[in-house]
């Protein structure tokens, strides 16, 4: 049951769109900064297969420039 957190950087001017895109994905909780072009993303998937699937979907988001991981936890 992996839990990760990231700083999510939107493409230029796409912060709102990125927030919507992330909100539409399962296992994602996004919190936008009020005064910077950045979001916090916390992911909480039930297993490694779902985690891999989510990673794939994140990479496909047009509104996302990059992700910087800040925390990771995987139950053994």
């Amino acid at each position, binding site marked *: 049951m992996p*839990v990760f957190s990231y700083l999510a950087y939107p493409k230029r001017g796409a912060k709102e769109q990125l927030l919507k895109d992330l909100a539409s994905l399962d296992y994602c*909780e996004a919190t936008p900064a*009020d005064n*910077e072009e*950045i979001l916090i993303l916390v992911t909480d998937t039930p297993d490694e297969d779902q985690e891999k699937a989510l990673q794939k979907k994140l990479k496909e988001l047009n509104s996302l420039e990059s992700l910087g991981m800040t925390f990771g936890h995987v139950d053994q």
Partner: protein
Amino acid sequence: MSITRRSFIKTMALNSAAAAAATLFPGISFGAWKSLDQASGGMQWKKTPCRFCGTGCGLLVGVSGERAVAVKGDPNCTVNKGLCCVKGYHSVQILYGEDRITKALVRKNGQLVETPLKEALDLVATKMQETIKSHGKDSVAMYGSGQWSITDGYVSSKLFKGCIGTNNLEANARLCMASAVTGFLTSFGLDEPMGCYDDIDHADVFITWGNNMAEMHPVLFSRMLANRKTKGHVKIIDFATRTTRTSQAADKSILFRPQTDLAVANAICYELFRNEWINWDFVNKHVSFHKGKTNIGYGTEDHFKFADKAETVDLEAYKAFLEDYTPEKVEKVSGVSAEDIRYLASLYGDPDKKVTSYWCMGMNQHTRGTWINNLVYNCHLLVGKISQPGNGPFSLTGQPSACGTVREVGTLTHKLPHGVVMNEEARKMAAEIWDVPVENIDPKPTYHTVEMFRALDRGDIRFMWIQVTNPMVTMPNLNRYRNGAEKEGRFVVVSEIYPTPTYDVADVVLPSALWIEREGFFGNSERRTQHNEQIVPMPGDCMSNTWQIIEVARRMGYEKQFSWSEDTYIEDIWNEYIRFHDSPKHRMAPYNDLKAQSGLQWPYVDGMETKWRYNPKYDPAAASGDDFDFYGKPDKRAWIWLRPYEPAAESPDSEYPFWLNTGRILEHWHTGSMTRRVPILHRAVPESYVEINPDDAARMGITNGMKVKVSSRRGSVMMKASINGRGKPPVGMVFVPFFDESYLINEVTLDAFCPISKQPDYKKCAVKLERV
């Protein structure tokens, strides 16, 4: 609502991301956090000041059930405006270390044995009474802390000074802030800064004097960076003895040779005159000139005594004194180019620039600590840049309540909550409020901290109670003082939360409640008093330090003076304490106001805080009708001091060719007894190290991570070399952080101190380096 393990992990994930974001984007805020909290399992958020440094950040602690599970910056606190540093974000984890002390321990046959708390308290009281009977009242002592809650310090002063009648009361703030206190008193007649953190938003120039703010006061440094980013023209000048993260972020880094800040400060003042940058209107109305004794010694011998004597001089005498400090002359002593000295002077001298100077341990842990504080005030006073938004000298505090508990309550040998023991009126006031005979209060100070531990070694002190501090890591020339504490016939009581080297020398260990496990108050660097309620329960038999002292005092027969109820004692003690400060110069906020707000600055008069003292626009104690009123001094003026450059107590020589500089790092709080038990902070910096200049390392064949031996005339320690790490000392200097009890660098340092403040110099002694 209880929290699941899963939601706890998610909260930690969220905190980590927020901490990373705050580091990258100073001032960033996440208004939508609350909804995410609810998604993460739900919790209540309660305010408290941070437990670590003297910045006094307001925190909101997330509580689920009876457990603190998360932290975020309090957006309502003007100190940090929602920001936190990495220690703050992980602060609640200090509550839950696996080896937390939750039971009283008494040494029996050499071993600390779990003992009922009542029995341990009985033993403490009995032992203290027996020691007084056998060896006199001055054979017992208490050593406290700038991490004491205000009420802890207040009841210790009442017990020791008011009831027992000894002035054997000191606190570790002597090791970190005493020079700031004597600097304020000698220059202004009253302790603590005239300005506040709002200066950060107004200043055009920041000059950090031997002060690695990026690591020691990271939230304030983030605010400085944010100001620079917003305004564009703001400059940060780092004036230091080694290159640090502060230097790297500064617009200009200027390095000086240890101790020569004295000469450079005088050279700046010389240049202010030479360029006619003096604010004559201010100087003529608000400043007077004075000189004191010179060649004042270093206090390395037992029973060292020194008393300064002020002599008033005129402006011409001051100008003649400065002739010895031309930039060219000072360049030779300090290594700072004459051009850089002129540049620094031009910043202070420019009438269109608001200048704020910051310092902390670099200037205070200095054998001429009082003098260098005086000299930086001189730089501001000559140009009238003081007591106004953005203009001011500002001494930062190292601990959360060094100001609130030690300086304001007066938990030092010569102090009372108001005034000093030598003053009859101050003794009368204390006796009346404490309900003790005035004869109880001894008019003679006894031992400052270094001398107190020397007295323990000599046997003049036989009983010492240590609360909320770890002197068996922090005392300079440590071998002597640890041996002293372990001698036959000494009895040491330690109130603690985790095992430490100080716990190792204890005869009794009392389990202390920590931070938000009890109600209390801190007082930060900018005269801000901050209240916290009890947010989580105390574990096991833990008890607040305040209540431990009350229990012992009652056992010693002082029930009348310590009659408070356990339900309301913190409020009742606060109400008694603030009677000492009931004047517009120092009035403290009422209990209910403090409970409701994220801190309030004194003087607190008619419901209003005072942001800038000595300026009638902001300070109700300042006489109206003039632009400034330095009411702390009898002549109503700020004092400019003629203080010369004098060398350090010990300098490198052929046998010990390196300067040793010691200090702190971002991730660890002081001796690491709390932060080394927070896994993420421990993993970030798991052990101490010695920073070596790359040229020195290359010359000696030392590579990064290689074990080296650092030795002085007093001791040695072996540790890993750090080359081109986060800090870089100049050629001929090494730097060692003191957070790691596995490497006791204070066995190497020297117990020399400023003869006026009695604060030791941890920044300068001579060592040699050897490959192991």
